């Protein structure tokens, strides 16, 4: 892996991230009436109950505080200020409702969402890989055709539908799992068994329903394995009298799983995005819930902040995937165009 490639890839990632932050800035500007007008409406609505009138200067001040935008400044100054507060001060503005920085809110929630996303991906992919490999090994058997239909069926079930069904069967009909929350009431937080158990108990259903997203990989794995099974090197390995276990892991497994690696890393980001819907179903207080709540009240700074953070996670996941791929697949030489 050459240093140049490393620099190039990191540079590309930074550029991508920069582009997204710019995009959020553009989105603010594109709001009906511009950011100040849009926020003013929200703030006015919020203040309505209190009966206070609020003077325009105060609103300008609030807009600047919440969004890092001074709407009366020239656009390039606004842009510069916005970018510098995001990049230099890691400041994504402030939530309209709680007096909390968006970064703090997100930092609180991200670990919980990552928890369920990563586990969902790992479980979904592990299951898929095992299933796909067995299907390929028994290609054209009854097991293979039945599994194919089952996988297509599961694949046709949106993860939120899976979530609803899980709640219905495992929380309402049988109370195996809680219907919501991320930890039981009255469980003492900290590094203790009860707390960990409670976390696992609460995360189980969201993880399970999101792992449906990874299931399509079973068919990919099946296809890859069938292809590898037909390769010359596999035949030679058999002729060489190698152990079956070695052929299964080092030859079929490795060569069939490798092409799915990048897909997997990007998948984590995709799953994280889906948490918006899943967390709402399970009332699981992660970033997804935060986003959902922010939409209800048009809490724009939180929305934009989440978008930036989601992108950051994706950029990092893809970056890691690209940088490590060269290590696990020697054919992709450094700097190579991996098409």
């Amino acid at each position, binding site marked *: 892996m050459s240093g140049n490639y490393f620099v190039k890839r990191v540079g*590309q990632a930074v*550029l*991508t991230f920069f*582009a*997204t932050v710019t*995009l959020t800035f553009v*989105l603010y500007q*594109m*709001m*009906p009436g511009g950011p100040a007008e*849009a926020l003013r409406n929200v703030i006015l609505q919020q203040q309505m109950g209190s009966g206070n009138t609020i003077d325009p200067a105060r609103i300008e001040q609030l807009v600047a505080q919440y969004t890092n935008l001074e709407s009366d400044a020239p656009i390039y100054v606004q842009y510069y200020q916005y970018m510098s507060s995001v990049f230099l001060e890691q400041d994504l503005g402030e939530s309209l409702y709680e007096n909390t920085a968006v970064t703090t809110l997100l930092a609180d929630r991200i670990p919980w969402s990552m928890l369920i996303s990563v586990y969902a991906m790992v479980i979904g992919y592990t299951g898929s890989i095992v299933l796909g490999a067995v299907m390929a090994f028994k290609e054209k058997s009854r097991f293979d055709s039945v599994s194919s239909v089952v996988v*297509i*069926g599961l*694949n*046709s*079930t*949106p993860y*939120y*539908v899976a979530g*609803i*069904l899980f*709640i*219905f069967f495992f929380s*309402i009909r049988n109370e195996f799992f809680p219907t919501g929350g991320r930890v039981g009431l009255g469980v003492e937080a900290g590094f203790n068994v009860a707390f960990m158990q409670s976390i696992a108990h609460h995360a189980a259903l969201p993880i399970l329903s999101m792992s449906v997203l990874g299931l399509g990989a079973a068919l990919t794995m099946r296809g890859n394995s069938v292809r590898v099974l037909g390769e010359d090197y596999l035949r030679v390995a058999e002729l060489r009298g190698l152990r079956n276990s070695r052929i299964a892991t080092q030859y079929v497994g490795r060569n069939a799983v490798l092409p799915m690696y990048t897909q997997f890393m990007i998948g984590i*980001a*995709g799953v*994280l*995005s*889906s948490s*918006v*819907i899943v967390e*709402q179903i399970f009332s699981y207080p992660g970033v997804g819930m935060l*986003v*959902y709540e922010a*939409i209800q009240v*048009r809490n*724009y700074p939180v*929305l*934009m902040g*989440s*978008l930036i953070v*989601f*992108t950051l*996670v*994706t*950029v990092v996941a*893809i970056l890691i995937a690209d940088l490590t791929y060269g290590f696990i697949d020697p054919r992709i030489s450094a700097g190579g165009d991996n*098409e």
Partner: protein
Amino acid sequence: MSNDQEGLETLFDADIDREPVPRSQRLKRQFDLYVAAPCRVAMTDWRALVGTVIVAVFFLMGTLGVWLVDKPSSGDAPVLEPPFQNFDYILGTDTFGQPIGAQLIHATPDMFKMVIAGAVVSVGFAALVGVVSGFLRGTTVDTTLMSITDIIITIPGLPLVIVLVAIFQPESPYVIGVLLGLDNWPGLARTVRSQVLSIREESYVEASQIMGLSTGTILRRDVLAQLMPYITVNSALASRRIIFESVGLYFLGILPFTTFNWGVMMNIAYEGNALNRPDMYHFLTFPLLTIFLMSFGLVLFSQGMDSVFNVRLRARHASTIDDDGGHE
């Protein structure tokens, strides 16, 4: 230099007794190759068959169905009528007394509009970018397009769509479809590009270039024809994705409730605590089943298309080509 040589003249002037193929026979052959043979292939592949039937049924629902079944409105019928009791509302009614079957049917046209807009944007755009970029490999156009694609590929689609929806509150199904299609194209464009690159390596493309065929002909005949299976399969998959996402967003209540939609029905049922009320089960179950069926149909259809596009299978099922299979 078309120096007309004598040998050549005699060769081409040699009168061989060949009856010209009549036009009707040519048309018959075209029909056999491009319509009849693919249909015969589809008949032999259960996935293609089932998939096509399901997609066709939904299509009929969205066209004929809307015309046959009245648009439901509140109080059409008793509230929360259970299913399979009354022929007029065979799937039962919801909490407002609207027949569920009619709602499912009337949600279909907008769904199709969304799907078509989304699939056109994602697959069409992907194909355009991928083909142009692949064909102009190594040029500035290629690198620029691919850099842009790489950036957009990284912006997570669903959160972006949610933000856009929150800001703009789109109501038109076409706009929603386009928004949902936006995050799908970059990945496809990359794969299309790499496919174009490998097609370009084939000798027959080089031969076409050397024979001086126009770029348009080469793109159409050699490149797109080869990409068609891929594009079709992905259109079906993109459609499924758009259905999933739009229904999900309606279900969450993020998209405005201005139209009949399976997701809206699910939302109302779910918010009405349907999971705990057996008398409401059907209100939640039928939209769920509908989504499942449509998606199942699309996946099967996309897999079946693989064999329909397979030229070997088509040739075997064509009646105007004799396939003795012995030429391997």
